[in-house]
């Protein structure tokens, strides 16, 4: 960081804890975040914008008389005032289900800061975008191409009345491209991107462009959409989306509040036996890797589903207290890096196994419905027909619908090869409802 602040903030926050106590708080935590970022954007295939950003923020949470209040800001001069406001809110605020923030415990160290990423310059990220744009325009000069890249370095600090004083540093790059092909009223949109903490071979403009070109090639030919109950091939990015309702279901606060369909179903066969899902907060250089949650509790690698059997819900400190359970070290009751264990066959063999089905590359409107129950109905924004194990062309004007829990409890086949971050395989599921307009 050009202007590191964590060491200074430790003293400020220790004084903040004392102020909170003086105002009547029985427990408190203060969080600080500071980032520096550079960015570049290409539009219509050429460099359009570049810039930089430096920002900080803090949040104060206090516990008074069994209730919690929170205040956040970004003017350090206001910190004392914000502590006062948090205490005022706590008087009438959120019911707390814990008495004190836990004492510090040993954490599993995980690397999230990379000098290689830190040394990524503006010229580098502009060059990366330029390579993607150049590859896409080289494939088809009529494409409308946008690309973007960022490099970020951040520092954070958590100080709690339980005795935790934990700082961290993180770097992250992100690189992606997007292409629109317009032929009269027919449009195809294809995009792909990556993000990681360490500057490693994943930073590959050529591979990113190649993925987008693959989608564009597959969408060259239009074919009639099928209808009915069909097999669907889910590439990793789509499987990742289908797991989202599962995250809502294992969210400990949702469970405790009666809003999860998985309530009361621990140790039940909820998903297919082929599905084992873990949370992996200690994956080195993963963007969401974490040593500690926002209450000062050490994170842990957790089995969420073992052979489809639901093993646990995820709890932050307060939600655990509400539910009468132990906290799992998951801020916001969410996984850090949910990871689906791979299957046996390659993705090529998986595709070949589909006699008649659809390939769901991207959906429009997934999540805009009763997704908490797992229900979805979405437009197949980019999808292909699979016939006799081969992609035969793009389908349009097609809706896919179903219930994620039902679909992932049926036959689920997983590939042995995974997405770039090692977390999601390709999948084939059965019973997706496909409806379309006849043309």
């Amino acid at each position, binding site marked *: 960081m050009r202007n590191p602040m964590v060491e200074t903030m430790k003293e400020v926050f220790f004084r903040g804890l004392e102020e909170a106590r003086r105002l009547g708080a029985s427990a408190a935590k203060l969080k600080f975040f500071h980032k520096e970022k550079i960015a570049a954007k290409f539009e219509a295939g050429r460099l359009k914008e570049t810039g930089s950003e430096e920002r900080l923020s803090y949040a104060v949470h206090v516990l008074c008389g069994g209730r919690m*209040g929170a205040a956040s800001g970004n003017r350090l001069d206001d910190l004392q005032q914000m502590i006062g406001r948090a205490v005022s809110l*706590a*008087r009438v605020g959120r019911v707390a289900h814990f008495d004190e923030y836990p004492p510090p415990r040993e954490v599993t160290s995980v690397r999230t800061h990379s000098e290689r990423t830190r040394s990524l310059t503006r010229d580098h990220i502009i060059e990366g975008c330029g390579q993607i744009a150049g590859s896409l325009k080289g494939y088809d000069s009529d494409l409308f191409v946008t690309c973007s890249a960022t490099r970020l370095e951040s520092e954070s600090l958590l100080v709690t009345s339980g005795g935790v004083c934990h700082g961290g540093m993180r770097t992250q790059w992100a690189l992606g491209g997007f292409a629109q092909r317009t032929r009269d009223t027919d449009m195809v949109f294809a995009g792909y991107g990556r993000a990681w903490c360490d500057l490693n071979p994943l930073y590959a403009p050529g591979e990113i462009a190649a993925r987008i070109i693959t989608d564009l090639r597959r969408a060259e030919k239009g074919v009639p959409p099928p209808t009915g109950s069909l097999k669907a091939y889910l590439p990793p990015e789509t499987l990742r989306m289908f797991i989202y309702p599962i995250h809502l279901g294992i969210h400990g606060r949702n469970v405790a*509040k009666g*809003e999860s369909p998985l309530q009361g179903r621990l140790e039940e066969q909820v998903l297919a036996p082929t599905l084992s899902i873990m949370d992996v907060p200690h994956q080195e250089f993963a963007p969401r890797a974490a040593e500690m949650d926002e209450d000062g509790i050490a994170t842990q690698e957790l089995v969420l589903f073992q052979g489809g059997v639901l093993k646990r819900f995820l709890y932050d400190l307060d939600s655990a207290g509400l539910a009468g359970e132990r906290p799992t070290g998951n801020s916001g009751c969410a996984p850090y890096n949910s990871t689906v264990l791979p299957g046996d066959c390659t993705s090529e063999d998986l595709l070949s196994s589909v006699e008649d089905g659809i390939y769901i590359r991207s959906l429009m409107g997934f999540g805009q419905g009763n997704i908490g129950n797992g229900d979805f109905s979405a437009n197949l924004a980019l999808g292909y027909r699979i016939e006799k194990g081969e992609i035969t062309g793009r389908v349009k004007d097609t809706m896919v619908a179903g219930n994620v829990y039902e679909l992932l409890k049926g036959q689920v086949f997983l590939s042995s090869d995974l997405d770039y971050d090692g977390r999601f395989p390709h999948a084939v599921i059965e019973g997706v409802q496909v*409806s379309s307009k006849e043309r």
Partner: protein
Amino acid sequence: MKDRLFEALKKSSADYAEIRFETSDGTSLAYRKQEVDRANTWSLCGGIVRACKNGGWGVVVFDSLEGLDVQVQEACRCAALVGREKTILAEMPPVVEERPALLGRDFRTISLDEKLDLLGEYNRIILGANSAIASSSVEYMDTMRVVFFANTRGTYFMEERPKVTCAFRATARDGALLQRAHDSVASAVSYEVVLGLEDMAREVAERAVALLRAPKCEGGPQTVILNHRMGGVFIHEAFGHLSEADFLCENPRMRRLMAIGREIGVNSLNVVDEGPLQWTTGSLSFDDEGTPTGRTVLIKDGILAGRLHSLETAGKMGERPTGNARAVRRDAPPIVRMTNTYVENGQRTVQELFQGVDKGIYACDAFGGQTEFEMFTFSAAYGYRVEKGERGELVRDVVLTGNVFETLKAIDGIGNDLRVLDGAGGCGKMGQAPLPVGFGSPHLRIRGVVIGGR
């Protein structure tokens, strides 16, 4: 503030530069099931410098006004790295104005206790409505966002942008089956909007329970009637985003496709975007480039009549700036966005629209929508079967999709009961969400809309 911003802009070496600085103060309260689940407050400030040199943009995001001249220089330096063409921005006469909010009942004068008592009462209504109600959520938020803006053309404005929202959600359970219902209100002018919502709370709870028993809507092409909210989301997703000129400006094929004068809908279809409505959260006096907002006719008698612009898109397309460059937050650059977009009144009564439907679906309220220009999707909160002109059985999972170049021409009935609405959510585009927008429509009837399902 004006002097400070103009002083910093003197350091600009770009063809054009601007500074936007904002403060945001607010409170967020929520009940969830029996308890207060959230009591947060915030006070934030910061802004963004943008500079344009030879057609390239430099952008610097900052938290503090200290060193603002250095931020301006940095933005200009970035712009100089990028620009290889000519800067083309539409001309606008400079304005110098301050627009304090025209607040009715000011939410800042209402005590925490009073707000929580109100939310608690609504929450009790939802929880007590039916034994099948498993959970409830009542969320309240108020924000006072103050925007200060200045540019090298001599424009300066200050505008206060208040917002109050209240959102209800009821979760009903039958075994492992969960159904949810929701509704919300929002206002840019008065705390009064969150008062007297007892009936709304009750309806949300009753609907969640009713949806437990409701069958799923059948999939396939259907004739649909859309209520006001659903019609508003429809036109927002089906057409509104296509009218945002930054999607067209640098894309020659899209420009040809969306040429002014193209027939795009039925000849009774008229669509407008109107910034200065005042009472909705999508309303504003100036956009985030200092252009006064206005009323832009987008479709007139079924023909493409206008577009929504920023200074750059208007300049490059040789059209008039419309005051639609909006930023969702203090750290975001302005991009072309809608304000309050609605279908104007037609001639039919609602009864006439229903009478024309032998078999169809009445789609009501909205979970949301999404578009990829050609294709769009929008999701009803609930629906009813329509048979022989009569509203029938409640159905769930009503998600519709369409092709804009076909669906706008498949509208065969426009009601005469326009309502422009607001809500607690907002619009998303290019990572900027949720932007408050107003939307609306009279009841609409459309043939052959594909609904997802079995």
